[in-house]
């Protein structure tokens, strides 16, 4: 650029018509607006944050992640057709829910190795490998959802069942009996239906209509097994 200016300056003194004088007549900027920022609109905010997350306090960082997780919990509890879970997926929520559920399914006393309820590792394996299997199944059937998005949705939709587990444990504090069992059964069934409906609301759009049932059935089986583990829990 400097050379051109220099040469145009020299040529201006040498010849009446400078070499690059015609450039200003073209005036591209008036015809085609080429000004502006070259950024992707959605990540504009993240770019701004990237510069400052190193300097913020730890509390601020943790609260931001917790708020994101909480926002997704709200989206699961009131399932609408939104894609917040899909767009900003994270696996913190599923991890928190899975650990909570597995801890609550532990008995206080060891009743005998073979006859007990599910161990912590069994619950963990069922939840995570079940979610991975369903995701693989969904992708093999030709669904257009990414691996971690699907894991995120399936993990977050365990929230109603975790709430059911909490309610069951509280109800069981009042002693066992047929009325007790009916209350627990009702709560678990309602939360199971809520989980299936919530996850279907997020996952159903990613499949063509002639394969939707094939993709939804494993989700149904997955939440059914978890509901069964919750219902058969006896302290």
């Amino acid at each position, binding site marked *: 650029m400097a050379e051109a200016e220099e040469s145009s300056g020299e040529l201006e003194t040498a010849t009446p018509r400078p070499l690059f004088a015609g450039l200003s007549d073209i005036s591209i900027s008036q015809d085609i607006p080429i000004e502006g920022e070259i950024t992707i609109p959605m990540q504009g905010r993240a770019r701004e944050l990237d510069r400052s997350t190193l300097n913020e306090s730890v509390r601020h960082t943790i609260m931001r992640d917790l708020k994101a997780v909480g926002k997704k919990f709200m989206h699961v509890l009131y399932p609408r057709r939104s894609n917040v879970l899909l767009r900003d997926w994270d696996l913190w929520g599923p991890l928190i829910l899975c650990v909570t559920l597995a801890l609550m399914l532990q008995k206080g006393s060891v009743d*005998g190795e073979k006859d007990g309820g599910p161990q912590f590792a069994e619950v963990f394996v069922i939840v995570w490998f079940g979610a991975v299997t369903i995701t693989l199944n969904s992708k093999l059937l030709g669904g257009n959802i990414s691996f971690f998005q699907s894991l995120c949705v399936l993990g977050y939709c365990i929230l109603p069942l975790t709430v059911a587990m909490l309610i069951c444990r509280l109800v069981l504090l009042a002693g066992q009996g047929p009325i007790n069992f009916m209350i627990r059964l009702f709560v678990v069934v309602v939360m199971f239906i809520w989980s299936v409906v919530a996850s279907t609301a997020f996952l159903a759009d990613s499949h063509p209509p002639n394969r939707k049932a094939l993709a939804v059935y494993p989700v149904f089986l997955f939440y059914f097994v978890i509901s069964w583990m919750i219902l058969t*829990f006896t302290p």
Partner: protein
Amino acid sequence: MGHASLERKAVTPQRIMAAADVLAFHEFEEATTLLAETPDAATTSQRDALTSREHVAVAVGSGYGAPEVEDEGDKTALLQEEKPQPRFWTFDYYQSFFDVDTSQVLDRIKGSLLPHPGYNFVRHHLRNRPDLYGPFWICATLAFVLAVTGNLTLVLAQRRDSSIHYSPQFHKVTVAGITIYCYAWLVPLALWGFLRWRQGTREHMELYTFLETVCVYGYSLSVFVPTVILWLIPVEWLQWLFGALALALSAAGLVFTLWPVVREDTRLVAAALLSIVVLLHALLALGCKLYFFQPLPLEHVIPAPQATPLSPSILPPTSARSMTTL
């Protein structure tokens, strides 16, 4: 063989179409003769200039002669261009085994529930497009249903007889899963290997691929799912009746599917193979019934003294009572 005669005539559009028709008919003859020799090929016609009536799409019949009526799914698959086969380490290779619709899966399940002689599951329903969705998820469903209903049986038994010690018995899920999956995948492997070894010297057209064998076994287990749910009814003879019925349907489906393959072999080998297949199936059904649905198993009483040493006095009466009711 199929060349149009090259004569010196004016090249008119009618002559070109006539020449194309002649070529088309010759190609059809060639295709039919080739098919008569190797019935397991499926032909496609890839010339875009011709109309659709000239696409030669003939499905394989197991020596039935006339081409079978196809559904839309097969037609679209045959009309596609020949793609290079994906390698087994790519994702697309496995995606080709999940290329089924809901209606196809339901149709295959219905086909395995109601077998009759001469009704070959592989030829009628699979039509050279085996899938892995059905076998995998039917096995998973069966494993979980077995564990859940076995547990429910124990709950209901405890209602009637409160001396039985109830526990969730979660380890049975693991046992059920491993048993069902090993049966549904290892037995077809052994069967396929054995059939290949027997047919190794003869060029036999009826041999099923490994996936088709897995499909046959997987879908044949689907009749056990409603049976296991019906085993909740605590009437003993009814449970045995349902079990026998399910076993008969399932084994019949397997035998009718395997019969066209083994009838070419010697009588002894054919009879031995079919009886081993039926026997393994019966063993599976019996094992499931006895392991998951024993109403009053003695093992529930025996570990109690080790786990709860605080109540040894109630033990002898409960064991005596459970033995009488068994």
